[in-house]
């Protein structure tokens, strides 16, 4: 096999890509094609007709741009929060945890094995209005006398942050873990303060992890609906909630489909801008 690959070097990438990309083609692209078809339909359930209804997109955008923008704001804040919270932890696991590192990786991921609903119900319990946390916060006047943590924007963003934490932490760890310790030592010798060493050497070397983590957090978070549904009020509804409702409750498949493409398209645009900022090689190597 080595010989065959050697002679047909150009084939290697295609062979590597083939299984995965075929899977994605059949089980993602094809359904997406169908979704595209739906997005250009009009009519009422179940009598939809394909009419090149590009107006679906413009009316969806004008009706729901608030939720769309809100989704990106929430996802952005949550991604930033995840980055700030996860980076020190990932750093610690990569450099200080020694033989315990896999255990701590499991600690990061294990809450996920407990199903979203069970985790969130526990948070609903902990952060309840009459619960200990809120009471303390009211006593120390961080919250007003009738203040609450749940059913607020804070709760929704905090929920997104909590639930996407592993998606930031694990790529960060992956990237930090490979940094040669000697580089860090050299940096400490080179720079006058550990902070400078960190900023000038560690962070740039972990950039691929930062980029990966931000993508893995921001992209799915933008389309999330469940945190807003369980932890927010109607004023926190995200685009995911709209799409969910349009699909399930209104049976308005064309609008749901066009909104999905608007979401995907916007994310791609953001991706392109992001790639330009961090440098495209950070996305592809």
């Amino acid at each position, binding site marked *: 096999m080595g010989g065959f690959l050697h002679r047909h070097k150009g084939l290697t990438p295609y062979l590597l890509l083939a299984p995965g990309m075929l899977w994605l083609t059949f089980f993602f692209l094809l*359904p997406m094609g169908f979704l595209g078809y739906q997005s250009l339909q009009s009519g009422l359930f179940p009598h939809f007709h394909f009419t090149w209804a590009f107006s679906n997109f413009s009316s969806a955008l004008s009706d729901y741009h608030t939720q769309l923008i809100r989704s990106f704001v929430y996802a952005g804040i949550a991604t930033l929060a995840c980055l700030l919270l996860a980076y020190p932890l990932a750093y610690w696991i990569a450099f200080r945890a020694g033989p315990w590192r896999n255990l701590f990786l499991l600690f990061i991921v294990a809450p996920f094995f407990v199903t979203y609903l069970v985790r969130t119900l526990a948070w609903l319990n902990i952060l309840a209005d009459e619960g200990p946390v809120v009471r303390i916060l009211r006593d120390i006047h961080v919250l007003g006398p009738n203040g609450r943590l749940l059913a607020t924007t804070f709760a929704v963003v905090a929920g997104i942050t909590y639930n996407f934490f592993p998606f930031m932490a694990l790529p960060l760890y992956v990237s930090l873990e490979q940094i040669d310790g000697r580089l860090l030592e050299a940096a400490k010798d080179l720079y006058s303060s550990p902070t400078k060493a960190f900023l000038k050497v560690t962070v740039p070397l972990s950039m691929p992890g930062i980029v990966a983590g931000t993508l893995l957090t921001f992209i799915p978070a933008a389309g999330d609906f469940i945190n807003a549904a369980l932890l927010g009020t109607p004023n926190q509804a995200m685009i995911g909630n709209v799409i969910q409702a349009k699909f399930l409750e209104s049976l308005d498949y064309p609008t749901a489909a066009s909104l999905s493409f608007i*979401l995907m398209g916007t994310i791609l645009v953001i991706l392109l801008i992001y790639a330009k900022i961090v440098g495209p090689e950070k996305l592809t190597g």
Partner: protein
Amino acid sequence: MTATAVETTLARPPRPSVASRVWRFVGRHALTVYAILAIGYLIVPIAVVVMFSFNHPPGRFNYVWHKFTFDNWIHWNAVLGIQGALEKSLEVATLATLVATALGTMIALAIVRHRFYGRATTNVVVFLPMSTPEIVMGSSLLALFLNDQNTIQLGFWTIFIAHVMFIISFVVVTVKARLIGFDRHLEEAAMDLGANEWTTFQKVTLPLLAPAILAAGLLGFALSIDDFVITYLNAGPVQTFPIFVWGIARVAVPPQVNVVASAIFLVAIILGLANVVWQYRAAKSTRGAAA
């Protein structure tokens, strides 16, 4: 050289000030403290889940502590369907994670290490599943399956297919983070020493990639075992654990759900601890071998 000159040359650098030493001490341990706090934050709701698995609720809802009981743990599968759902979830997650990790790693290798026609497009296509809302991804996949009723029935395999589909993207991005900036010198050294590409890949590349593949696999497993929307639409008659929980939680969450959730968590931690012991042994044996 005179003795004094030697002393001067070898003179120790001035000792850092007390403040700077204290700062460094705090700094060194602050990180560990932070790490503990961060893990604590992640685990806090799980602690509540475990706690309430020992609760004996008066009515249907398990949100107010009533009294302690072991009953739920003893009769953990008293709730109809919970055991089957758990088994299905674990089976699908294990299988889907293995397949998706393999496929995703290969894609990552191709994208990062080769320049080929369609590279940028491939990159974009890989990102797309992550950005698609689950409800539309699930329902369009369902439409696809329903078209091919002779080849595939809704059930375990359709769940498997769906899970692999959405896990691949996450694996690709995670493994890429390791591949970008991968030091190729080690591979070049191996090849200089006479290894062919396949052996190099096996003995050098793969082991170095292992932490990233493991991390990607963990993420994939978590995604699979936690998925609800896509699974619900494409499961046909099969029930996975999240589907089961969502179904029963619509009205009330029996403590047995807490028991199962706690058990899953505990098993994961025990596996992690086992790994710690294994790592210690591995480290000791390499030290011993080197000695």
